[in-house]
């Protein structure tokens, strides 16, 4: 059963975040990602989707494929998201479809990330001919338009299920991650601690696994999430244009039927709005987690704390980028009297005192 495995992966980081705040003292201490508001919002939303993916089929009030007499009904108490042209309940379809979306997204993400790590880190660390050829390979995959490629490949495969699609997306979307990882590895390669490990005679693979990889965690995870976003989009797109098999429900399938049954012309907005919003929400959640990781890696990107600042003497100052905010005068004078006296030239604001 690969279904819960993929989704549980998504749920675990969110688990301690949602529960832990009250129970443990400060979960943020150990996992700085949880202190970031953006990342937290993203993780909670993601956790919500993961829960729906696991228990959605049980939650669904109707069988998503079952026809009924309520044809093309707008949302009501009985059918929360309305019904299709065959009287199928759209709310149930969205609930049941979540599993397929997350499954394909995370499977493709894992495949692509593994490939990216192998290709990128090897290329960056080994250098020379290996680097050259691996770089060319990933650049080729980067510039060939992925979606048309996936379309013609899956058109060539007669019956493409969820797993085939996931593999296909994973195999075509690793190049960006590999490129980023290669650049990062290149810059790590010359750092002192790596040189030191090399000097002490560590084997190449040990250096890669224990010195280089741990320093790439943030880049790898942000690449993983980026790929998951891409995979979710591609899968929904493929289902929407009717290329993947349309028997299992996912959000793209709903949109496919909405489009092919002229939902727009009939004014049945409820047919495509819920699925689209769900996609956007999932995408936003993933992107937020990614911003959190980015801000963790390069603190300059943080938005908070850079607004107008009130100085102790009552002026408001807008910090310009490129200048470190200096709030030293707020400290009481008595605390560091000696230092001030000994080195008066370094005092930051000498004129007023």
């Amino acid at each position: 059963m690969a279904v819960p495995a993929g989704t549980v992966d998504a749920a675990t980081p969110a688990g301690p975040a949602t529960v832990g705040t009250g129970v443990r003292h400060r979960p943020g201490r150990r996992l700085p990602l949880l202190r970031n508001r953006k990342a937290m919002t993203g993780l909670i939303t993601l956790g919500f989707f993961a829960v729906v993916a696991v228990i959605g089929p049980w939650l669904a009030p109707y069988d998503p494929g079952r026809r009924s007499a309520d044809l093309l009904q707008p949302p009501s108490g009985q059918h929360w998201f309305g019904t299709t042209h065959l009287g199928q309940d759209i709310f149930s379809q969205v609930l049941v479809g979540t599993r397929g979306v997350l499954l394909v997204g995370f499977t493709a993400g894992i495949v692509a990330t593994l490939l990216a790590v192998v290709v990128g880190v090897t290329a960056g660390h080994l250098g020379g001919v290996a680097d050259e050829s691996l770089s060319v390979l990933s650049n080729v995959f980067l510039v060939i338009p992925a979606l048309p490629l996936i379309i013609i490949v899956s058109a060539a495969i007669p019956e493409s299920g969820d797993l085939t699609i996931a593999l296909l997306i994973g195999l075509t979307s690793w190049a960006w991650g590999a490129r980023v990882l290669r650049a990062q590895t290149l810059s790590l390669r010359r750092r002192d601690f790596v040189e030191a490990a090399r000097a002490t005679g560590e084997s190449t693979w040990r250096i890669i696994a224990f010195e280089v990889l741990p320093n790439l965690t943030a880049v790898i995870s942000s690449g993983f999430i980026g790929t998951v976003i891409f995979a979710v989009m591609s899968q929904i797109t493929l289902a929407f244009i009717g290329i993947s098999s349309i028997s299992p429900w996912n959000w793209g399938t709903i949109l496919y039927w909405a489009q092919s049954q002229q939902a727009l012309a009939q004014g049945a907005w409820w047919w495509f709005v819920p699925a689209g919003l769900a996609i956007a929400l999932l995408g936003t959640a993933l992107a937020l987690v990614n911003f959190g990781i980015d801000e963790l890696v390069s603190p300059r990107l943080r938005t908070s704390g850079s607004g107008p600042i009130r100085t102790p003497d009552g002026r408001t100052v807008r910090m310009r980028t490129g200048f470190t905010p200096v709030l030293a005068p707020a400290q009481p004078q008595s605390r560091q009297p000696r230092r001030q006296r000994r080195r008066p030239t370094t005092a930051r604001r000498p004129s007023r005192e």
Partner: protein
Amino acid sequence: MRFLLQRLAFYLFTVWAAITINFFLPRLIPGDPVRSLIARYQGQLSTDAIDSLYVLFGLDQERSLWGQYVDYWAQLLRGDLGLSFTFFPTPVSDVIGNALPWTVALVGITTLVSFALGTGLGVLAGWRRGSWLDGLLPVTTFLSSIPYFWLGLVAIALLTGPGSFFPSSGGYEPGLVPAFDTIFLGSALQHSLLPAATILVSSMSGWVLSMRNMMVTVAAEDYITVAHAKGLGERRVALHYAARNALLPNISGFALSLGFIVGGTLLVEIVFSYPGLGFQLFQAVGAKDYPLLQGIFLIITVSVLVANLLADLAYLALDPRTRKEG
């Protein structure tokens, strides 16, 4: 110069790779969908056309793989991509030739506009960090998470309809004959407004974000502080010192992500039934029109590569370091 030659060599290699993928893929199709299609049109196909389809899809079992490969190249160089089944008996190259200008006009122009606008906004947002522009970031995130085609659906549902200025589908008024006159061009423009706006809204936000982040990173460099210390105006520092340097990674990012963007924008054409390559691709998928599918993939790849080359030229013009090396 050396930089340019390297890039050219790389693009040629990529074209070769794409063509080789295109050569092998149909040979992996199990069964004979093409053979059955050929059988269906048996009476109407000329022997030439059948031959070219045999070469494209490797139906000629007697030739070796290498021989097939050589034949395939020879045929491609003649510009023969086979016959389209959907638009029988039009050759694939003609179908693509009709669709390409529409896509180039819609996708090409909107992609450039979106890059320019997004980068501009990103410069502002990155320079004035902490201002109201930062409030736009969550909005742009949400917008960029929406699939292009879904935004198109919503736009059609909300903005089109009887009596609306925006037509809901097509590339021009039905009944008009494509020609370079004001009536036709005006109609084409009117039909492209909504698809263009859709692409713009969902693709722009990515550029805003990446440019903002680059600006924030660049703005902390020493040379920016020096420029400030010299007493240069805010505007000058922002545009000539920070933005100019922040732009470079954004341009190479632009070149590399063109493949992704083009894939997404093709779907907008599907939703709006816009007569470009994306819509043809959609029809070809539905009709299992393999020659057309293959041809479209090849053309899209080549166009993306050409666009990449242009982006490289822009990079060359903006970054003096690339010129010095040669």
